[in-house]
């Protein structure tokens, strides 16, 4: 289980803006193993989304070394190694739900029959059977986000990159999706890199929590957790959960994340 899938060393990324250059990532070292559920947590501007986008080859690092599954992020992207979930569902409004999910499969050149079958299967996994022929606007925000997860899962990538996928949802829906997604992760054994700014979400879901801090964006602390795999939302009331949440909060405080 300790085979690394993502390996970053001395990663730096500087955005050249009109006035001052922004140091989005500063000397980031990170190793993520196969099967890990890693949360990147920190206040806005700490570079967590940037780090995810670097892994996804949506941004190029200014310096440093990173490989994804032993190859460069670009190669990993071209090999369709990862599925990416954005903060917004980003469903194409002119496509029905099932055709949104089949989009990556169509791009990969699968037959119409295979596309339909695999999309149906994955819509079932996220609890959206019966909504195949609806259009995105006919679904609630939570359902749209589940459709986007089905879309990221349906071509069975090894790695899931998720950028605050539940960030825009209300707490009740978010809790529900957290539980559902945890079960999904347990049954598929994929590696997940999950960006969040919710401590309880990070603690509940992760096997490894990466605490980050802004200006410049850097990693403060990596907290490994060892939680029972079959945990439910009730787990958040336990002392163990509180203890890890406390550690995360302390790490954030050390990084002056609570300062003005």
């Amino acid at each position, binding site marked *: 289980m300790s085979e690394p899938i993502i390996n970053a060393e001395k990663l730096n990324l500087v955005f050249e803006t009109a006035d001052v250059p922004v140091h989005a990532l500063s000397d980031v070292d990170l190793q993520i193993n196969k099967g890990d559920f890693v949360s990147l947590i920190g206040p806005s501007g700490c570079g967590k989304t940037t780090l995810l986008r670097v892994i996804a080859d949506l941004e190029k690092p200014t310096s440093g070394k990173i490989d994804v599954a032993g190859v460069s992020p670009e190669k990993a992207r071209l090999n369709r190694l990862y599925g990416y979930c954005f903060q917004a569902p980003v469903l194409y409004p002119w496509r029905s739900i099932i055709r949104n999910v089949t*989009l990556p499969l169509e791009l990969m050149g699968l037959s119409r029959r295979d596309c339909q079958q695999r999309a149906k299967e994955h819509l079932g996994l996220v609890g959206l059977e019966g909504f195949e022929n609806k259009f995105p606007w006919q679904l609630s925000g939570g359902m749209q986000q589940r459709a986007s997860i089905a879309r990221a899962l349906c071509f069975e990538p090894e790695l899931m990159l998720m950028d605050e996928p539940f960030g825009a949802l209300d707490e009740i829906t978010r809790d529900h999706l957290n539980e559902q997604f945890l079960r999904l992760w347990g049954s598929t054994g994929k590696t997940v890199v999950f960006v969040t700014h919710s401590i309880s979400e990070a603690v509940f879901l992760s096997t490894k929590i990466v605490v980050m801090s802004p200006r410049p964006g850097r990693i403060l602390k990596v907290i490994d957790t060892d939680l029972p795999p079959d945990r439910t939302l009730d787990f958040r009331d336990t002392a163990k959960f509180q203890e890890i949440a406390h550690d995360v909060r302390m790490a954030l405080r050390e990084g002056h994340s609570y300062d003005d």
Partner: protein
Amino acid sequence: MTTRVAPSGTLGQRIYAGRAFPVSVILTLVLIAWYAGAVYLNAPQVIEKFERAKIDWTVGQLIDASWSMGRPVLPSPHQVAIELYKTTVLKNVTSKRSLIFHAYVTGSSTLLGFAMGIVLGIFLAVGIVHVQTLEKSLLPWIIASQTVPILAIAPMVIIILGNMGYTGLLPKAIISMYLCFFPVVIGMVKGLRSPDPLQLDLMRTYSATPAQVFWKLRLASSVPFLFTSLKVAVAISLVGAIVGELPTGAQAGIGARLLSGSYYGQTVQIWSALVVASVLGMVLVYAVGLTERIVASRMGQRP
């Protein structure tokens, strides 16, 4: 697709609630102004005629005569209506005196030019969006092409193509195309660039090729922009076809009717040709709008 709820109630209530009421109010006002204008513009000639014939005229006679002149400055609405009735319902559609025949002639070159304009417009827009040098080199020329009055260009197009042996439909369609590709280019360039960064990032995460991004994302995003352009384009395509019929001394078409009407001072004929042109224009714009609604509902647009 916007669905209009059918108004219920008595006929009067329905007329009041629907579109019929405001439209008929405007129509009535236009007709009143038109009749008044006919009297005002035609009266000097009528008075002259009365005085030459040494007739003691009354206001009633003046009005009556100014609404029924043979070659009025401004024909009255009922004269135009009668002329329209005579040249549409009473004439065989294959007759050269039938306005339906002329509308068909103009309409066919309008549609051919419109189709050619769409193809040219989309082709140019795709080039401009994908090749940066084309945007810099082509776009200024495209804009410049529209600053030259079409009336100046039309005769040259007709003459040059006539020399090459092309007469009739094609030269007129080319003039239509010349006018109507422009809104298509502008709308499509905007439409093809309308996908937001996240929609494009999504395609990138799938390692989609530029062709796939075009077919699966850009083209679908551009559809609403395209239809807005097409409504403008089809209307000016009709203008192009009519203008194209003027310098040739064409035998058929709404433009030819306008031209022969003005040669012989047949104002009634000119006005009825104008009415047919505007009805044709409305039908074309409506047809584009209908197509837009059908396409939009198939693309899951929110009602």
